[in-house]
């Protein structure tokens, strides 16, 4: 036997517990396999496979362009309306899909949770991150549209990873809250379609946030998806003014959601195996 045997102490925990990121790191390979499984299964099950990732934002874009762009003549900061709304729909679809997949992920993995030990955080994290493939596919469509409209982003595109990070933080934060809540209140998944619907219209996807005048516009970015959407548009489509303060506010809000989500999740985690 080895001399450096690790000793684990198992005892009841009380109240708030630490997030234990180092343990999550130790289980990164399992996390990778769970993401891989989600991706494999998604593409094996649907006949349309990859096309599905484009169809959803594309059709929403068509509908929005027709009703909001053509008929209601909603302004779009001087950018052609279809690409104005599609650039927002790409991160939005990632967010809303992540939400619906992740919120049911723990209940869906009940079998695993009751029979194996691993940091439960892996489950919603895998559900959210597996959506990145769909995101990438939808993004290629966005590039095609940019070529079509002759829009070239310039050096600002360097900020794109930052915006993507903001999207990830937001999705993950909200997903952690919802997935943990859903274990105890199975009704949560019924309010998710409703929640995403409301959130969609509370985010400047069909309209520009420039409809609001300043302090309000920045204040509005407490909804982190506002920063995401305006950030994507700015980095890719070249809206004139940098949405710096908005993105900052959104980042702060997103981090607050993520950190509180992590702690809330960890607090409920010990009950998952008994209740799920």
């Amino acid at each position, binding site marked *: *036997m*080895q001399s450096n*045997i*690790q*000793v*684990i*102490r*198992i*005892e*009841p*925990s009380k109240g708030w517990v630490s997030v234990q990121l180092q343990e999550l790191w130790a289980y990164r*390979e*399992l996390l*990778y*396999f769970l993401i*891989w*499984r989600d991706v*494999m*299964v998604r593409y*094996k*099950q649907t006949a349309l496979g990859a096309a599905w990732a484009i169809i959803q934002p594309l059709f929403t874009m068509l509908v929005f362009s027709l009703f909001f762009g053509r008929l209601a003549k909603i302004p779009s900061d001087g950018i052609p309306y279809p690409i104005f709304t599609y650039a927002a729909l790409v991160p939005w679809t990632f967010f809303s899909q992540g939400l619906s997949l992740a919120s049911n992920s723990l209940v869906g993995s009940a*079998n*695993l*949770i*009751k*029979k*194996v*030990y*691993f940091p439960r955080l892996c489950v919603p994290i895998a559900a959210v991150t597996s959506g990145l493939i769909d995101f990438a596919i939808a993004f290629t469509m966005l590039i095609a549209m940019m070529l079509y409209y002759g829009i070239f982003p310039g050096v600002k595109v360097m900020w794109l990873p930052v915006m993507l990070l903001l999207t990830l933080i937001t999705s993950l934060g909200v997903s952690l809250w919802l997935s943990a809540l859903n274990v*105890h*209140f*199975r*009704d*949560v998944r*019924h*309010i998710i379609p409703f929640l995403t619907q409301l959130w969609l219209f509370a985010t400047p996807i069909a309209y520009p946030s420039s409809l609001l005048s300043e302090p309000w516009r920045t204040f509005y970015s407490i909804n982190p998806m506002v920063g995401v959407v305006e950030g994507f548009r700015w980095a890719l489509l070249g809206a004139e003014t940098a949405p710096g303060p908005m993105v900052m506010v959104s980042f702060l809000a997103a981090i607050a959601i993520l950190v509180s989500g992590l702690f809330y999740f960890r607090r409920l985690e*010990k009950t998952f*195996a*008994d*209740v799920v």
Partner: protein
Amino acid sequence: MGDIAIRVEEIGKRYRLGKAEKYKTLRDTLASAFTAPFLKVGRLLRGEAANDTTQDEQIWALREVSFEVRQGEVIGVIGGNGAGKSTLLKILSRITEPTTGFAEIHGRVGSLLEVGTGFHQELTGRENIYLNGAILGMTKKEIDRKFDEIVAFSEVEKFIDTPVKHYSSGMYLRLAFAVAAHLEPEILIVDEVLAVGDAGFQQKCLGKMGAVAKEGRTVLFVSHNMGAITQLCGRAVQLEKGRLTRSGSAGEVVAAYLSSVAGTELKSSWSDESSKPNSSEVQFKSARLLSVDEQPLSITNFNESVLVEIAYEVKIPIRNLSVTCLLYDSMSRLVFESMDTDMSEWNGRVREPDVYRATTKIPPSLLRPGRYQLTFAAFIEGVKVIARLDRVLAFDVSGVGYTLQPKRDGIVSPVLDWTVCRFSEHERMV
């Protein structure tokens, strides 16, 4: 040798009952989708327990359990159904937390509470080996290294790139066990997973377990197979209603256990007042299994039928009440569900308050030899479940009278009437 591998000190585990309400109807769910979130959020904010407080019964699945396991020791855990064995293993595997006490684990733990955890139907055998291996705690490198060995052990080489949804249950099991058998932790925790599969495969698995034990690893092993316990384990502990009641050499503990439970280990009747689910509408009175000559039964032969009898009291007039009986096999697969209103004139009628007794017969030559458990539930069709008795009865089907060739798959093994005739003869007859 000599060093402690597992130390369990005054461990207790309390479960809330009435929480796991699996039978939720759509109507209930929809109705509560509008009202419940607000009520619950209110409760949550006030810091009260999140679940419905109406059925807040609690049980201690484990109570003040203490023992030690030395490194390299193979220790068996025995006890009847609901004794708390699985709960103990779950705590030691860190799947659930104890309510009281603590445990110390010295070394890397691998636990096997079920074979095939995380297997995905859509993925191929190869993909599932990697997924399941990772879930059981193996690294990708480790799986790469053992891959060929795992495939060979599973005997499914030819189908390794076929999605497992096309596997027979036997192949599925062999593959799942093959992955598990190649776990190499310092401490191995195994629940009753060897009770499945055909006899030949079980023997192979026990052989593998024995090999693991000989390599000097610590093993904690739950089984109903007393032969396996005495054969593999040096020491054993016995749990009874959550308490550790015996501990000593495997031979002694098994002998004492067998003589204490002689004949009563498998429940064939239930009428325990304390565990009765309380409902103001329907109350279960008793449930029994009888042989054809009306004797209480806990073991039956393959070619004999089993009578199921359930008595329940209806307290207020109810329309559309049914009592359903669910039979599970040793792998917790649902074999069938049958309702007392399937045939009778009671279907759709109002039940006036009274005590009802429903009996039925499970036909002979249907259930494969093995262990079965029965669950009963009283419900109103499409509306709600009123009362539920989870796995209250259990019985064994012995191999006596089983004349089919042994190797076959499927949940049941009915003896069907086959007619085979030669085509040429058939032609001549027409």
